[in-house]
């Protein structure tokens, strides 16, 4: 028990201890305490750094700040959890892959129901959930991605459409894009397609996917979304915006690779016909598909106007 002696010694200024013994003891105790304290804090810091990566399936509540800011602002009080009327949100515990005590949800278990009054955001006392978010449709909790084309029933040519039907932002966040079904060669495939400008990441699509393991999943946006370099300009957009090409008419190059009926491949491999908008249409790429070229989203998607 050295508490009785070291505590006053560490408080007293060195001048108060006449002998060097006292000073040595003071320095020793301070060094030990400082070392111990710093080691503990360092350990906690290292642990937090190693565990700070959010796992792929943990989605933050609506309005959550970007992850580094969120970990600075969230005091782990659980008030958002308490005010969530659907018990969507959970608090992680030590050892969970999510930073200790912070709120998250698993879309496949309980997705976000996108309450219009956003009670979780209102409950947050620190601003970890940003009150700037007043329209739940502007929430960007994550981003859905149809990750498994091999299992998705619509990709198999069936009409499941469940993810599309349940989407609260139907026809904006998920559309069905019509494409030729090369397997049957006479049917269409209606492919669920997620649009990042409208997807809130609520996870209802993942929750309702009829497969034993969801083919469409919601991920934090940093995982699900790529980004074009900032200087990229899309020629066709610039052209439309300025009413004509900015760099003059381009030399028409001959189209190669589509000369023969199959061009060295199986006919079924060619899923999408090349755009038939040019002056000379390519010579019968995959004959029946030529008319089903991709069209603008609102025109080509199955817009049923149906709302849940």
């Amino acid at each position: 028990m050295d508490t009785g002696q070291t505590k006053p010694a560490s408080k007293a200024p060195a001048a108060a201890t006449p002998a060097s013994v006292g000073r040595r003891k003071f320095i020793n105790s301070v060094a030990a305490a400082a070392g111990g304290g710093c080691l503990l804090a360092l350990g906690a810091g290292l642990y937090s750094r190693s565990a700070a990566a959010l796992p792929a399936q943990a989605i933050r509540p609506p309005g959550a700040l970007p992850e580094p800011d969120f970990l600075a602002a969230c005091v782990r009080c659980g008030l958002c959890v308490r005010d969530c009327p659907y018990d969507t949100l959970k608090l992680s515990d030590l050892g969970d892959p999510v930073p200790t005590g912070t709120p998250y949800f698993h879309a496949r278990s309980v997705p976000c129901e996108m309450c219009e009054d956003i009670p979780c955001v209102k409950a947050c006392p620190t601003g970890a959930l940003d009150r700037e978010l007043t329209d739940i449709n502007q929430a960007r909790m994550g981003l859905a991605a149809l990750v498994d084309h091999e299992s998705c029933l619509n990709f198999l040519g069936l009409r499941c459409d469940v993810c599309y039907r349940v989407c609260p932002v139907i026809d904006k966040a998920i559309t069905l894009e019509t494409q030729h079904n090369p397997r049957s060669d006479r049917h269409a495939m209606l492919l669920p397609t997620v649009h990042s400008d409208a997807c809130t990441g609520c996870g209802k699509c993942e929750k309702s996917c009829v497969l034993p393991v969801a083919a469409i999943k919601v991920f934090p946006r940093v995982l699900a979304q790529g980004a074009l370099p900032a200087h990229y300009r899309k020629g066709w957009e610039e052209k439309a915006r300025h009413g004509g090409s900015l760099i003059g008419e381009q030399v028409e190059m001959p189209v190669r690779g589509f000369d023969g009926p199959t061009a060295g491949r199986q006919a079924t491999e060619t899923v999408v016909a090349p755009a038939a908008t040019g002056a000379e249409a390519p010579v019968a790429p995959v004959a029946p598909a030529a008319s089903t070229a991709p069209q603008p989203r609102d025109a080509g998607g199955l817009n049923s106007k149906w709302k849940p």
Partner: protein
Amino acid sequence: MATTTLPSKPAPAVCTPARSLWQRQRWLILRRSSQLLILLAFLTGPWFGLWIAKGNLSSSLTLDVLPLTDPLLVLQTLVTGHLPYSSALIGAAIVLGFYLLVGGRVFCSWVCPVNVVTDAAAWTRRRLGIKTGRVPDAATRYWLLGGLLVAAAVTGHLVWEWVNPVSLLHRGLIFGMGGGLFVIAGIFIYDVLVASRGWCGHLCPMGAFYGLLGKTALLRVAAPNRKACDDCMDCFAVCPEPQVIRPALKQVGQIHPLILAPDCTTCGRCIDVCDKQVFKMTHRFDQRSE
């Protein structure tokens, strides 16, 4: 939890009338009630749908009007560079004001759930007669307090909240417990086998923080009847911060009988265990001694 009946003390002394169980355990019972009621205020909501307090000790909303926030957490948040909303700041100000006024480490002994664990550990250690171990310097907690603030500033995260046993336990009791149990078990084992009162008395940076708030605390324990002390050492054995008793009881460096050291958690256990009724709960301006 703790007990006064050491084997060496068979019967009450002749001059002191035997004290009832209530007299011997009063402050302990009051303290445990306080800790339990505070916990229950958070649990009636999820259990019975009767919402008194929402959240946990880190930040809470009582009866939908009263925000309370841990000031140390808000301090860490500010250090990372994030300015919380006013509800968190107001909540922290209320808590800060309360503990500045009433007594900083009153939090430790009357609110904190880890206190129950470490009191149980101290009781176990006394019961098993364990005297060995290695106690860290009591100033370690202040270094840890500084360290966690520096860590928050450097990493930009609330680093301490990843492992903070106080919030781990309280949050776990309310929202469900998982891996946090290992930390709590670790603290119990550490306090029993390695260091007497090791966590609360030497390491916990929250205790250190509230201790700093306790320098102006009104609610204090005093030893007005110190003449009656028969040096039985019961109070020293049971006190979580034994060094705070000596100045008041033995007039070391002070005349008045007040325990003014900020380390004192105002738990009142010394009042309970003293058969001579030397101690009493009072305010910091009560300098009377008999």
